[in-house]
């Protein structure tokens, strides 16, 4: 029997509230599949299952709030006898047997619809969706050929009601940021370094690349900088990981937490997984998708729990430099300022050059300024050869 537990989704999260199940008893679950949506102080998070199996029992109900580590559901492993389980399920439906104020409803399998895809739905279901203010094309129906039924619409409307209002979300997020940042400044002995990086080669190369690309495939400087950062980190593993139980634990992969500001205020820094391994074009698409979903308030549990370092990029509208506050239990944060044209001396000649200030805030318990400086130098070098990124 596999226990599906509520994972920790960041240092500042103690509990979550189940919004809806996306599976029901008897459903086969694949690795990485989204099985539930849980509301946290920061976002509605899609909970992924990291094991394969068949859903046996749902032990928590929509609307329930419970701490990190709670067993939310049980799954049958591949070898386990489904026959005994099915007998029990036929006898007493486990979800219905739970005594709870809110009866368990089989949640519709809801997946984000591809943009522009119009769902099959009866006129009655569409009418009900309008009445209840439900976006019907975002629902995956349970009717014939995936058609959306009136019942699907009503279940979705009910789930939406259990989500907190935007104002509450903002207050919660502010509290979460306050708690994480206070802990960081209380516990982490930060040291700070900065380096001006010449960006002529990188900007010229990117301009040339983008001139040949349609608007849908253009690459932002932020993606190029992320790739360079991820490659530099491979050589300095002491900046990529966590401080836990009095010691440093290097991370298994380079999962860069990207600080993304939310329009209504606050920010999130979900993970861009394996940033060092993705080709630049794919990394750009992954980044665009991550930004879109973060701003829509829809993230996956692994994106919340995996970041092994954070990068903050102030971009074109920002200021020249930024020194970050490390997000515990991570041990480093890299900041990029706006690219500015400044006088630059090279080979005895003075000229105007585009520069970016890259900064490192790192945990002195884990690394020293010397290694930090070498890391920024490696980042500078990588950005001089954009064609290799």
């Amino acid at each position, binding site marked *: 029997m596999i226990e599906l537990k509520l994972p920790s989704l960041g240092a500042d999260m103690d509990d979550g509230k189940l919004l809806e199940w996306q599976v029901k008893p008897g459903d086969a679950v694949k690795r990485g599949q989204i099985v539930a949506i849980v509301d946290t102080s920061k976002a509605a998070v899609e909970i992924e299952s990291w094991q394969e199996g068949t859903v046996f029992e749902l032990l928590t109900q929509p609307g329930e709030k419970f701490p990190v580590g709670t067993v939310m559901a049980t799954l049958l492993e591949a070898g386990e006898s489904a026959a005994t389980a099915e007998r029990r399920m036929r006898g007493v439906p486990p979800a219905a047997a739970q005594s709870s104020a809110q009866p368990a409803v089989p949640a519709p399998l809801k997946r984000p619809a591809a943009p522009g895809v119009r769902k099959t739905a009866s006129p009655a279901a569409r009418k009900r969706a309008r009445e209840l203010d439900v976006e019907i094309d975002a629902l995956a129906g349970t009717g014939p050929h995936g058609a959306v039924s009136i019942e699907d619409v009503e279940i979705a409307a009910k789930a939406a009601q259990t989500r907190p209002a935007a104002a509450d979300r903002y207050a919660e997020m502010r509290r979460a940021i306050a708690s994480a940042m206070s802990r960081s400044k209380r516990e982490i002995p930060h040291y700070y370094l900065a380096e001006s990086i010449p960006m002529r080669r990188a900007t010229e190369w990117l*301009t040339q690349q*983008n*001139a040949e690309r*349609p*608007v*849908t495939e*253009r690459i*932002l*400087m*932020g993606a190029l900088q992320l790739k360079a950062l991820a490659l530099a980190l491979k050589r300095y593993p002491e900046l990529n990981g966590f401080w836990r139980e009095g010691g440093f634990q290097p991370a298994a992969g380079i999962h860069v937490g990207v600080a993304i*500001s939310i*329009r209504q205020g606050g920010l999130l820094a979900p993970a861009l997984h394996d940033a060092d391994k993705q080709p630049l074009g794919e990394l750009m698409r992954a*980044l*665009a998708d991550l*930004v*879109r979903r973060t701003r829509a308030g829809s993230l996956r549990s692994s994106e919340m729990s995996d970041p092994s370092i954070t990068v903050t990029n102030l*971009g*074109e*509208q920002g200021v020249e430099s930024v020194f970050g506050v490390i997000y515990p239990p991570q041990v480093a944060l890299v900041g990029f300022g706006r690219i500015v044209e400044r006088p630059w001396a090279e080979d005895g000649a003075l000229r105007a050059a585009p520069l970016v200030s890259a900064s490192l805030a790192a945990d002195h318990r884990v690394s020293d300024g010397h290694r930090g400086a070498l890391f920024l130098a490696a980042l500078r070098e990588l950005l001089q050869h954009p064609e290799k990124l």
Partner: protein
Amino acid sequence: MTTNALRGEVIALLKTIAPEVEEGDLVPGEPLRNQVDLDSMDWLNFLTALHERTGIDIPEADYRKLHTLEALLAYLENKQAKRQAPGRPSREGKSAI
């Protein structure tokens, strides 16, 4: 697309990215990206959506011409007009068949 329809389309797309935007609040002649607080990702998303709706692909080199809403609308109209002109079959083309 008429000037008014184009304007409506552009405002509607801006609202999908920045829902707080009200057309009346946009000051003509002021830089659009500052007024609406569009970062480089928002801007790219806006241009991608614009491309999907109108078929107009704005090269990166032209971004600097699109400082204000008025400049953007003028640019789009110009592009539309240019695109439509060579699309019509000419008389010489027909007689050659």
